[in-house]
């Protein structure tokens, strides 16, 4: 008996020693950096359960949306080994071999003549599990909007950030020359599709600005040779001239409460200053009275202060002003030229145009730290504006003599182009999220 115990003890000791052997406290490795690359994703063409061909390529729109964000790299369809439309048909090993990290499948089913149902599922290829799955009703006409909505849900689930694929952009295009020159104010889906002209004129149209509810646009038009600020309701097309004072009427921007506009007026004496116009009463309040040019106002997130561009220091710089005492403080410190401030949705950053080694480029200024980061790489990039999720900026870049719509991620890592109609594209602005 004693012998048995002795041997048991011996074995225990030995095995304990054996198990101790590889356990030099596990290695601890710190990961302090990542990359800003696109996640490989496979968006399989959605199956269609009705007769004939599918009425719309939902997966195509979803893949294009995700690709446009720069955060996803959709796999080419011709590289797919199979095209499952239900979870049971998915072979994760294949997708793993194809290096897809995320798999999106789905199907479109007709309900009646014009009504359809879209069903989609998103899988984590490494973990072989469903991340997301939804079914939604739609119509033939709403199919594109539904596809954007699907892309938004996928984007939000995978990045933790709300997608902007269902939002819109407004921009100005200039076509023709001389007498045939035509300015158009265009509203399009965020991917550039469904572009619609809401206003046009042979004279310049400038500075569109979305109302906080996304239903109206304020803009400047030189119809008849003089500038005026208009507010137009998008759905009805009804528009109202809200400011047509002598001299310059320009750069309108909506207060966060949607009840007033900040704008730039010259009021006859030719000195451009910042004013606030209350829309219902028409009451106008002068905010700056500086002999230098003060223009391009932008509201602070709290609505009690303004940012604007002023050359009072000799060259254009960004200033911040408290409405209460109307005292302006220069906040841009880096660079010899900083203009056209636009606030990020979280209110912590300003996008602006900065002179970077002889090139006008898009930059982001951190309001807390005052640091400036250049994001774009063009020669004459202008009019940056944040997407409503704060992740992307849209701006106009020059390509030859033409302006085109370009995007860049807020971290400067991802660049994109938005397809748009012919012509010189200027002053893009991104709509807020549609109200729920």
């Amino acid at each position: 008996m004693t012998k048995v115990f002795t041997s048991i003890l011996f074995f225990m000791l030995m095995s304990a020693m054996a198990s101790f052997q590889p356990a030099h406290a596990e290695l601890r490795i710190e990961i302090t950096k990542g990359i800003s690359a696109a996640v490989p994703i496979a968006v399989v063409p959605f199956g269609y359960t009705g007769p004939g061909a599918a009425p719309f390529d939902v997966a195509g729109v979803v893949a294009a949306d995700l690709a446009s964000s720069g955060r996803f790299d959709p796999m080419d369809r011709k590289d797919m080994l199979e095209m499952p439309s239900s979870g049971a048909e998915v072979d994760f090993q294949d997708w793993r071999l194809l290096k897809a990290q995320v798999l999106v499948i789905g199907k479109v089913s007709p309900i009646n003549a014009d009504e359809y149902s879209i069903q989609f599922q998103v899988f984590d290829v490494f973990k072989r599990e469903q991340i997301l799955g939804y079914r939604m009703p739609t119509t033939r006409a709403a199919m594109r909007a539904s596809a954007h909505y699907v892309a938004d849900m996928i984007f939000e689930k995978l990045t933790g950030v709300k997608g902007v694929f269902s939002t819109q952009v407004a921009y100005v295009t200039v076509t023709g020359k001389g007498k045939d020159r035509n300015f158009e104010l265009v509203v399009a889906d965020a991917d550039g599709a469904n572009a619609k002209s809401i206003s046009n004129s042979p004279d310049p149209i400038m500075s569109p600005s979305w109302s906080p509810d996304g239903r109206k646009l304020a803009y400047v038009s030189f119809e008849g040779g003089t500038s005026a600020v208009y507010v137009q309701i998008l759905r009805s097309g009804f528009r109202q001239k809200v400011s047509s004072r002598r001299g310059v009427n320009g750069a309108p921007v909506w207060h966060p409460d949607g009840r007033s506009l900040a704008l730039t007026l010259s009021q006859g004496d030719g000195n451009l200053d910042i004013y606030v116009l209350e829309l219902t009463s028409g009451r106008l309040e002068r905010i700056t009275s500086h002999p230098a040019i003060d223009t391009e106002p932008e509201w602070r997130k709290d609505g009690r202060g303004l940012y604007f561009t002023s050359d009072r220091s000799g060259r254009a710089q960004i200033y911040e002003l408290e409405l209460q005492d109307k005292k302006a403080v220069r906040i841009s410190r880096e660079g010899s030229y900083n203009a056209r401030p636009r606030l990020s949705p979280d209110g912590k950053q300003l996008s602006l145009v900065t002179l970077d080694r002889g090139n006008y480029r898009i930059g982001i200024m951190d309001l807390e730290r005052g640091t400036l980061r250049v994001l774009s790489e063009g020669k004459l990039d202008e009019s940056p504006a944040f997407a409503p999720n704060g992740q992307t900026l849209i701006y106009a870049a020059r390509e030859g003599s033409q302006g085109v719509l370009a995007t860049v991620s807020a971290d400067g890592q991802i660049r994109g182009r938005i397809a748009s109609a012919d012509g010189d594209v200027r002053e893009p602005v991104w709509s807020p999220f549609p109200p729920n």
Partner: protein
Amino acid sequence: MLEFAREHARPLAYSFLVHLVIVVGLVLNVTRFSQPAAAPMKVVPVVQSSVVDMSEVNRQVKERAIEDQRERDRKVQAEKEKQRQVEQEKVRQVEIKKKREQEQREAKLKADAEKKKEAELQVKQQAQEKAAREKAEADKKAEAERKRKEEQARKAKLEAEKKAEEVRKKKEAEELRRKQLEAKQKAEAEAQMRETMAAEEARNAAERSGLLAQYIALIGQKIERNWIRPPSARPGLECVVQVTQIPGGQVVAVKVVRCNGDDAVIRSVEAAVYQASPLPEPADASLFERRLQLVFKPED
């Protein structure tokens, strides 16, 4: 029932015979009794026709009458006597007969009893004989059984002894083997310990020479190259991930131990590790670790 009849055939047969005899005897007696007894004799008085002196005659008649009467009485008496005698005889006969019958019956009964007794005796004898036979047989059997048991016991004992011997031998062999094994294991353990110590030594040497730091850096860099940071992965984030790899660097398990990031961040760190598989191998094999603790802590 049939069983019983078969087993006691002989006594039954005897009994049957006895009963048959009795029954036959009884039937014969009854037949005899049923024969009619002899008819009694008929006495008819005869009248004489001689004339006599009246007185005389009368006297005579008287006398004669008396005589006659006497005679008649006598006759009647005689007749009566005769009748009585006949009766008596009859009774006697009956008595005799009865007696004879009784005797016969008794004889018969006696015979029967004797027969029965004899039969019983025979049966008893037979039973005794049978019992004796059975006893003998049983004795024989018991004897055989006893012998068999004895034999069995003997064999069992033999077997047990053999087995005990085998067990003893086996135990001895096992003991020997165990001792050998123990010795071997001890030797192995010692060798392993020496090896471990040597490995530890090598590892320490490798660590000292900076190979461990290099290994850690290689793994870290490969994961950083594969970590596609979602926008929500901001400074302040800290995700501790436990990774299990096998020699060759293939990642077999990824477990997020704790993480203050959102779903997208968690998915991104998991994907980074899977995507970085196989992980770099150390320059010195002694530095390989199955388990790694990764801390995702973006700085900007």
